[in-house]
């Protein structure tokens, strides 16, 4: 049944991923032209201070945020840190997009929280704004470089233009649509968040390589559609395991760094189902039909 449906509608099915690709690219282009950036960056990529207070005491996050913003005269964001497994409060993370207020911040926090902050219960990370900018450029270069290297590997592996291009196009869709969603969710991306995109490249091509290999490089295993369906079975199992593991990880982990990485990969995996089985499969089917 799936077989007939796919063979009849594969062109229509391809419309959605292509629309998504164009929409996301236009969206990112628009973002870039209006804000000068394709993502919102956190302090690790923009410069600023990220401080963590470890305390079990309860404070109202919103109040703390507005109090700090007023006293430091600079936008302050506060997040609560809690442990899922024991559902206890671990502390608070405070982010400020400005440096040079480190001592003031500590002072204000001590008086607001009525807590002496020592090297035991207080962590503070400071990034100079030019360094943050440098890190951002570094990471963008790393993503572009990684993408090109991956493309070369794919071309060497399959040695034919259209199937290789389809794999790369599918990875491009994963990245651009994920970036768009990250942007819409107003997630402030960190250095590690961008590193997650490198993993997205890796995970994205996994299922595409599997499918392309089964369709192009095999002599046995039925016609093209049967092979596509067969590889979808394997590929979707792969995606399901990763998806479940990352969801569990996202819920359980106490680290905001890991949470963000997991979330980005989760979004990308969802997009990857569309890009692999609606777009790449369609291109491969069409390619085999032409031959």
């Amino acid at each position, binding site marked *: 049944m799936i077989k007939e449906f796919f063979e009849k509608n594969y062109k229509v099915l391809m419309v959605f991923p292509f629309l998504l690709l164009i929409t996301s690219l236009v969206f990112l282009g628009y973002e870039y032209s209006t804000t000068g950036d394709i993502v919102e960056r956190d302090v690790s990529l923009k410069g600023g201070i990220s401080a963590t207070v*470890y305390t079990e005491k309860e404070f109202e996050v919103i109040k703390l945020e507005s109090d700090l913003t007023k006293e430091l005269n600079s936008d302050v964001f506060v997040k609560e840190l809690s442990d899922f*497994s024991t559902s206890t409060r*671990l502390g608070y993370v405070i982010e400020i997009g400005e440096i040079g207020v480190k001592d003031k911040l500590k002072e204000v926090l001590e008086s607001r929280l009525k807590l002496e902050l020592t*090297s*035991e219960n207080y*962590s*503070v*990370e*400071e*990034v*100079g704004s*030019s*360094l943050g900018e*440098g*890190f951002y450029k*570094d*990471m963008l*270069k790393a*993503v572009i*470089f*990684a*993408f090109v*290297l*991956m493309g070369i*590997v794919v071309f060497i592996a399959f040695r034919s233009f259209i199937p290789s291009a389809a794999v790369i196009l599918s990875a491009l869709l994963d990245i651009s649509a994920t970036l768009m969603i990250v942007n819409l969710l107003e997630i402030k991306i960190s*250095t*590690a968040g961008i*590193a997650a995109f*490198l*993993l997205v*490249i*890796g*995970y994205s*091509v*996994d299922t595409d*390589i*599997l499918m392309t*290999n*089964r369709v192009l490089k*095999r002599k*046995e*295993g039925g016609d093209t559609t049967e092979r596509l369906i*067969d590889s979808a079975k*394997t590929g979707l*199992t*792969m995606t*399901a*395991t*990763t998806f*479940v*593991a*990352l*969801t*569990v*990880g996202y819920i*359980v982990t106490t*680290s905001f*760094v*890991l949470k963000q*990485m997991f979330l980005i990969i989760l979004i990308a995996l969802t997009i990857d189902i569309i890009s692999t089985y609606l777009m790449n499969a369609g291109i491969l089917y069409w390619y085999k039909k032409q031959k």
Partner: protein
Amino acid sequence: MKLGIRIWILIAFILFSIIAINPKFNVEGVEVTSVSGLLLNQGIKIGDNILEVNSVKVNSAAEFRNEIDKAEFKDNITSNNITSKLDIVTKNNRYTFLVNDEINIEVKVPDNNNIKKGLELEGGTRVLLKPVGNATVTSADIQDLISVLRNRLNIYGLTDLKIREASSGEDKLVLIEIAGVSRNDIEGFISQQGKFEAKIGDEVAFRGGKEEIPYVCRDDGVCSGVHSCNPGVEGYNCRFQFEIRLSPEAAQRQADITRNLSVITSEGGQQILSKQIEFYLDDELVDSLNIDASLKGSPSTQIQITGPGSGVTQKEALDTAIFNMEQLQTVLITGSLPFDIEIVKLDSISPLFGISFIKNTFLVVFAALLSVLAIIYLRYRQLKILLPMAITLISEILIILGMAALIGWHLDLAAIAGIIAAVGTGVDDQIVITDEIIRGQKEKFLSWKERIKKAFGIILVAYFATLAAMLPLWSAAAGLLRGFALTTILGISIGVLVTRPAFASMLEKLMEGE
């Protein structure tokens, strides 16, 4: 049943990893991570395992600090003949001595295995430095800088540190990571260029550094210390003094300068020279002293360096004086940095979160493993597949940890993310192998060897694609995410070379009968 070479290789790797990780179950006391001054002179070294302080068992840094604080001489300068007794029992030794000075020691809970923990897990200080201005700085310059910095930190009592060249874009940087130590005063020690000059009039008598000052007295109450504290206009003023020795050349230069000065009588009736000796640190005047008339034209090699320290309270003034003295001593010994630097990133991370994070990570990995295995069971409904899958996944984690322990890699947050990523890829590959084998079973014409070869055809391309994606991360962003790239690459490589062949082999053995 014969196990076959691939499974034996896996077993060898697992055993090897366990040896490399070397889990210990009987750790007690605390381990010394940095020590200087009195305790060092007594013979206590970095790495010593301290069990008791003044007959109280200590099992955490806080407990240790508590006991030391009780014993530590904390009185003010006027009563410095008060001493207290300190009795420290280490695993191999016992030290009993009197204390009349500040105690400089840092400890941590000893590791119960060989896996080194990174800053996020152990707490510590991370500093990223950048040369100031646009001056072209070569790698050789950076190496010079690193050696001066290492010296300074060692003198400061910090020897367990990582210091390396890093980069961000075109900028050359220096990365310093000091595990287990979170101190804010470190900033001044590192970033100070430390150009020391002693001037008489406009002429430089001598400069900081080994060349002209071969010896600096420190950690010795006789020739170095704070010698007076007096109430001033606002709060208190203390003065420190320590002795240095000049090289013969520097002493001669000083003699040549003083020879031409005239002798005058000071307000106090002392016979002194017409010009003072002035100490400058980074072009700022630290202190100036009268020169006794007897030193006129004399190539004296023994010189007293002095300086002030002030504060609202006497304690504060004393602390400032000690800090200023240590800083000056440090730059006199190590000389100045080859160029001016600025701190572009400074992190001080509490060890507290690390402990709960490690527990949490175990939970994350365990929960993720269980959920993956649940999906696998739902899909295949065969224990024969589930079991090798579980064995392979767990051994992969074990081998990555073993390898990391072997090369002494400090596992940080990024590295843990990398391990999770590598295991995720591992599951994917095992599903490919399983499906190829099951498919092969349906199509009788394929041999085991051919089926596995086909699976590895897919796995290898995916391997190289992920490898390619991870490589650029090695040096990007000052290499702070290097751990992520390393564990991912290590994980997928171990997977392709060791665990996945063994997995295929396990499946083959288990399904052979069918």
